[in-house]
Structure formats: structure tokens, C-alpha cells
């Protein structure tokens, strides 16, 4: 079956612009996660959704970052007024109910010039 998909695969933007990153989880997966993979920083947790609600937003680095999930499926991560330090690969993962394994998407590579 289809895995987690993310779009776009690459995004180049200018400093100060807003960007939206999209994640389509595996069908039936109730949990959805966003992570950021930066050079020298490894993988860092951003936010977790259970259904449409986000019980843990502790990883969002600033109020420029927000995320939503609708219909218990697609999620978008929005970064407002992008900065160069936002450049990274943004990974989405999902997992089915009662399973701790997380299935990752291919990521969106964001470059802020």
C-alpha cells in the first residue's frame, strides 16, 4: 500500500515569506508527527497529532510555526516569515492505533535564501 507522502519534495523560498508543507499519512493511521532534520542537529520533534488534536506542541521552535490536521488525515505545517535557520528537511510520520512504530515520509527539503 501507499506510504506516507509529503509535498512538495523541495521548496526554495526567500527569507520573510510564508511556506506550507503538506503531509498525507497512511490511511487509518490516527497519530501523525512532524520532525525536523537539520545538519548537525539530528532529528528533532516538532508536534504530534492524535486525530485532529495536538496534545503535544512542545517542539515547535517559535510562534512562527503552526500545524493543523483536518478530517483526521492530511496535515499542514506552516512557517511564517521564514528565516535562514528554518532551512532543514521536514519529516512527517504516522502510526496506527496501539502501535508505537512510526512510519516516515520522504521529507520536504526547505531552503530559505
Amino acid at each position, binding site marked *: 500500500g501507499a506510504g506516507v507522502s509529503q509535498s512538495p519534495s523541495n521548496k526554495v523560498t526567500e527569507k520573510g515569506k510564508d511556506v506550507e508543507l503538506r503531509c498525507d499519512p497512511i490511511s487509518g493511521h490516527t*497519530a501523525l508527527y512532524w520532525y525536523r532534520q537539520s545538519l548537525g542537529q*539530528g*532529528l528533532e*520533534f516538532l508536534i*504530534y497529532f492524535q486525530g485532529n488534536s495536538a496534545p503535544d506542541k512542545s*517542539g515547535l521552535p517559535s510562534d512562527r510555526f503552526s500545524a493543523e490536521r483536518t478530517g483526521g488525515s492530511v496535515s499542514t505545517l506552516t512557517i511564517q516569515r521564514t528565516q535562514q535557520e528554518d532551512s532543514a528537511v521536514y*519529516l512527517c510520520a504516522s502510526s496506527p492505533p496501539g502501535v*508505537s*512504530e512510526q512510519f*516516515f515520509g520522504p521529507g520536504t527539503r526547505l531552503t530559505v535564501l
Partner: protein
Amino acid sequence: AQRVTQPEKLLSVFKGAPVELKCNYSYSGSPELFWYVQYSRQRLQLLLRHISRESIKGFTADLNKGETSFHLKKPFAQEEDSAMYYCALLTGFQKLVFGTGTRLLVSP
């Protein structure tokens, strides 16, 4: 504090040599640990988890609570094992805390 430490950024071995990728964790609760692998140009994928005690692609990992370690081992490395390996700890709210990763390079 919840933390995962992978002390080696790069581990370079010859084909057929034994491999051990080190992972130490810090967690006050009962740990659930994983190894994820990322091959070149592929997505991050689960290699194994301590709960299942499986051996995947010849790799094993044993949770040592006394030493707070979860080292990944393989007796005979293969060239196709070359990849980035991440140790991860599952914490509250199902959040994975990752180590910084170890790049394994297996030379012929």
C-alpha cells in the same frame, strides 16, 4: 531529562568485520527503544525495537537498563549495511527522541 546519545558520528569498517553502534539513553520512565535506518536517498525506516527482540538483517540490540544502553550489533558487516543509523527513545505523548545518528560505512 530525556536524551539519547550516539557518541560516534562515523563508523568505518571492512566487509565481514563485526559492527557495534553505540547508543545510551537517559529517561526516568520505562524505556522503549528503537533503531531506525536511513539508506542513501531513501526514507527513514524502522530497523528493530527492543520489545520484539527480533534480529533484522543480522542486526540485534539488547536493552541494558543497568548501563542505560541499547547498542546495535552485527557479527559480519555487509556493504549494503552502509547507511545512517539512529537510535530513538519513545517518550510521553508518543514522541520519539532521536540520537544524532551514526554513519556506518562498510568498505569492500
